[in-house]
């Protein structure tokens, strides 16, 4: 694994850093996860599986997102997460699926972040409905997106790799009205 060549994001060239001209309502960014692993517990093993996950993730800076009943998506910088989770969660407990290559993360932050997102996503971004640290699974047009709120005005959007350019296009277009930069 360690020797594998660099991974290429579909946004590699699109998301080149750009400073905004004039006002900057949002700042956009793009990254790939070191690991992005989904764990699906069975109905009766949710607690046990969650504990197994926590044991592994607490020693790293991993982000654990609940994306369905007994289902978590875990984002970590390291590349070994899948192996570790597979070791900890056997098929009697649940299923481990690697999605590291299946998603690209689009970051959006700034005072107009919720304005830009709400132009395409039918979620209530009010903090009372979507708190910092929470994850919501929804869609931007026909593109499924997992949205993780990393701060009051900042979000990570986990988008399917094949749709990453399409989503980027939407977000960039919506950002023009408020001004944007790319970091």
């Amino acid at each position: 694994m360690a020797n594998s060549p660099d991974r290429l994001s579909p946004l590699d060239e699109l998301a080149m850093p750009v400073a905004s001209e004039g006002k900057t309502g949002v700042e956009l960014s793009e990254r790939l996860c070191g690991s992005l692993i989904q764990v699906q517990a069975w109905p009766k093993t949710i607690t046990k599986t969650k504990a197994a996950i926590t044991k592994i993730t607490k020693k790293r800076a991993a982000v654990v997102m609940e994306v369905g009943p007994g289902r978590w998506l875990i984002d970590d910088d390291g590349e070994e997460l899948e192996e570790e989770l597979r070791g900890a969660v056997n098929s009697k407990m649940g299923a481990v699926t690697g999605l590291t290559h299946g998603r690209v993360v689009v970051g959006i932050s700034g005072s107009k972040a919720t304005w830009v997102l709400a132009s395409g996503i039918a979620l209530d971004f009010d903090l009372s409905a979507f708190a910092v640290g929470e994850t919501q699974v929804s869609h931007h047009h026909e593109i499924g997106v997992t949205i993780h709120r990393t701060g009051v005005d900042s979000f990570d959007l986990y988008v399917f790799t094949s749709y990453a350019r399409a989503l980027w296009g939407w977000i960039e277009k919506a950002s023009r009205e408020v001004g944007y930069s790319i970091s």
Partner: protein
Amino acid sequence: MRFTCPHCGPRDHQEFTYRGDASAIRPDIKNTSIGDHNAYVFDRANPDGEHREIWNHTLGCRTHVIVTRNTVTHEVTVCEPIGPFKEVLS
């Protein structure tokens, strides 16, 4: 219309995919009766009024819900989970 997904909370109905009348129950896997399968596939009460129907939250958590909805007024009275996680989500 807005449905309350037992996992994700209230969402627009366009996040969900319609799967039809919840009263159509597939015969057991051991059942080989053509008549029973025909009834499951083709017979619909199609009521004007309360209708229990299955929707998949495809653009969300992808779990199924049974929505009780009035087909005349579109008023939704219940959104309940169905599937392996039924108890967990209830």
